[in-house]
């Protein structure tokens, strides 16, 4: 866990005071709404339908127990007793009062939390692999690099007024678990055969309107040049990103309009110019600079395997509930005797990603007792206890279960990713939460879920795509048709190594049809698949859109035939 020194602390504290003065001027009528809006967004404060929403940055998804306890306190004192985890690993509060936000931010600052650049046209919170440092398939731990970049882009004056939001995602493992190429910039840590570390840069991704995956810009930028290359990309975007149309302002539009050759040439030329100037010297990272940040992410004091290993399958054989949880929510760890535990925020009748004050407190206690005091948030709106000893698994399971955090559904049909939708969001055209719950209820039994196997259902309440509908195996997009909520369905999207943008299947479904429609798609898959090992996405890629389309609209076909 990165720990602030006096420089970080001073910056966050001064930032709170800056915002306090801006809020005071706004409330006193000295700062117009349309000016204050841009200032509050850069502190995480967004105007929603009923109240402001405060987005709190969770840098690359890492939290520690003191922060969880503070969150429990915060959601009780300033909100309605719960917070919401997002697809960008952040936490959102739905009900803070504007006049209290400066005090709220001051309290967050006590535990290294803030809303700096959580919204607005700036560089947003950096996301990364929730298994960083513990994954079996990891070749380089991305966390130190995320932190170095976080500091570089935080309150960078040149890049504080970008054309549009700008997102970085990092991965250092074989499997991309952070949907990196859906970001404006994806950074993949790579190691050459001679041992040299570098970055494979992809640029130009983004969901929302015209979803695109980031394209490779440079296969190997040396380790020392993380900031120089980032500067080149940001400056190119700041200069050439469109400012005449908010819907065409992301960097992906520059890439699309220019074509990749011209786009790459512009970034590479800027990179070369930076390298040849005083900026290049300032931005050059020495090995000791990286090493100093790496010290913040030490290997935990793991116990010897002989001490902590137990016969997990044996224990599971005696308890079906524990067995289901082990099978679905527990993953291998690179250290023998340890496991990665997923905490499901997708319990029945709970809003996907929501976490109550009691759950924050329970998670603080559990992480302190069993996972070195740390917790991670995931791209799928779940949480991870990254370092649980095998001998503690049963106790962790019981304690999570006691606060409804042990639903054994990670990666299954009820592990639905969803934005807050029309229930909260001022941008939404349609509800997401209710749709998620309707779908959930249709597959409530675990047997049905296990029969279906791995599948990713994602729901966004509008084109902006916070629910990542474009990269869901089954993606659902809420649209407004003459004041009614309708839902467009896309198939075949994926966020990881096999990243793809889903294809729209056909006409939208009404609110009362959508859950049944999803059920028909899944029923179709169960009939179409070669065997139980063929997953939904594999099946879709083999058979294509047509058989699923026939299934989705079968009632209509009957109506036409009749």
């Amino acid at each position: 866990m990165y720990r602030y020194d006096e420089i970080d602390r001073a910056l966050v504290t001064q930032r709170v005071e800056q915002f306090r003065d801006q809020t005071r001027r706004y409330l006193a009528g000295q700062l117009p709404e349309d000016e204050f809006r841009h200032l509050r967004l850069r502190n995480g404060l967004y105007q929603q339908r009923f109240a402001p929403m405060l987005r709190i940055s969770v840098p690359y998804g890492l939290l520690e127990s003191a922060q969880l306890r503070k969150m429990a306190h915060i959601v009780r004192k300033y909100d309605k007793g719960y917070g919401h985890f997002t697809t960008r690993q952040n936490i959102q509060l739905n009900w803070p009062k504007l006049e209290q936000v400066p005090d709220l931010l001051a309290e967050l600052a006590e535990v290294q939390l803030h809303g700096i650049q959580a919204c607005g046209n700036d560089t947003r919170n950096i996301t990364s692999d929730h298994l960083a440092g513990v994954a079996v398939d990891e070749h380089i731990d991305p966390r130190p690099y995320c932190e170095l970049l976080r500091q570089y882009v935080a309150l960078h004056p040149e890049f504080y007024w970008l054309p549009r939001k700008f997102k970085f995602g990092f991965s250092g493992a074989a499997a991309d678990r952070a949907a990196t190429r859906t970001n404006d910039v994806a950074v993949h840590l790579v190691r050459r055969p001679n041992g040299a570390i570098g970055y494979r840069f992809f640029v130009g991704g983004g969901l929302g309107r015209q979803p695109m995956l980031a394209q490779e810009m440079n296969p190997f930028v040396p380790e020392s040049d993380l900031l120089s290359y980032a500067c080149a990309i940001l400056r190119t975007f700041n200069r050439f990103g469109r400012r005449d149309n908010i819907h065409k302002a992301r960097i992906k539009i520059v890439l699309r309009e220019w074509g990749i050759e011209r786009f790459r040439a512009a970034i590479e030329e800027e990179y070369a110019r930076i390298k040849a100037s005083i900026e290049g010297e300032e931005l050059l990272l020495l090995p000791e600079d990286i090493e100093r940040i790496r010290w913040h992410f030490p290997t935990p004091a793991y116990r010897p395997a002989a001490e902590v290993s137990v016969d997990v399958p044996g224990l599971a054989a005696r308890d079906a509930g524990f067995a289901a949880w082990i099978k679905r929510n527990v993953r291998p760890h690179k250290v023998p005797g340890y496991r990665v535990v997923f905490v499901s925020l997708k319990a029945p009748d709970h809003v996907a990603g929501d976490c109550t004050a009691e759950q924050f407190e329970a998670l603080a206690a559990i992480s302190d007792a069993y996972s070195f005091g740390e917790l991670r948030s995931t791209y799928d709106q779940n949480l991870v206890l990254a370092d649980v000893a095998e001998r503690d698994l049963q106790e962790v399971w019981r304690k999570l279960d006691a606060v409804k955090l042990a639903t054994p559904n990670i990666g299954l049909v009820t592990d639905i990713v969803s934005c807050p939708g029309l229930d909260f969001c001022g941008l939404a055209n349609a509800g997401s939460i209710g749709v998620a719950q309707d779908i959930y209820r249709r597959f409530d039994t675990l047997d049905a879920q296990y029969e279906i196997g791995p599948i990713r259902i994602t729901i966004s309440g509008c084109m902006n795509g916070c629910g990542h509908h474009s990269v869901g195996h089954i993606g659902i997009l809420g649209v407004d048709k003459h004041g009614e909520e309708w839902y467009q369905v896309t198939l075949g999207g994926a966020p990881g190594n096999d990243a793809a943008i889903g294809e729209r299947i056909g006409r939208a479904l009404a609110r009362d049809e959508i859950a049944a429609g999803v059920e028909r798609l899944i029923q179709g898959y169960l009939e179409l698949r070669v065997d139980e090992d063929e997953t939904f996405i594999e099946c879709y890629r083999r058979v294509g859109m047509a058989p699923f389309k026939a299934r989705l609209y079968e009632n209509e076909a009957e109506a036409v035939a009749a």
Partner: protein
Amino acid sequence: MTTTILHAGELVEDNWTVIEDGRTEVEIAGGKVIVTLARWRAERETLLAAHSAVGVLVPNTTDIEAIYAEISDRALIALQFPIFTDGRALSQAVVLRKRLGFRGELRAMGDVIQDLVFWLGRCGFDSIVPRKDQNLEACRAALGELRVAYQAAADDHTPVWVRRRGRVAAPH
């Protein structure tokens, strides 16, 4: 009527006059004037003959590096903020100061509000013309809004990764 602006951190009476395109320079003959890049290119010799100093206002869409040779000897370069959220001139400013080494007066003009001033200062603007309705004293104070920074822009800050060099251990 003179205008009060921020220069080198202080509130001062401005002694430059902006001549909009289409206006003749006769009215302000002899003084210090700021003209658009287009006019500077078209009337360079005439302008230099008529005025004690000529500054150039560069659109924020201009490739500042490509045209720098034409304005590198100017005592003042002005950059534009058509709206305070349009940060293109911030990149022009940083490139002017850090890559091209411009040492003359660098002026920010347009929709300059108090809450933009701090960022302007860090990007190398030493001459700031606040929008007419802004509180000038508050604008002056805004230059020091935040006193620490992680990165260097066109300012006196040392990047934090450089400041930390030599420190032995992280607090673990």
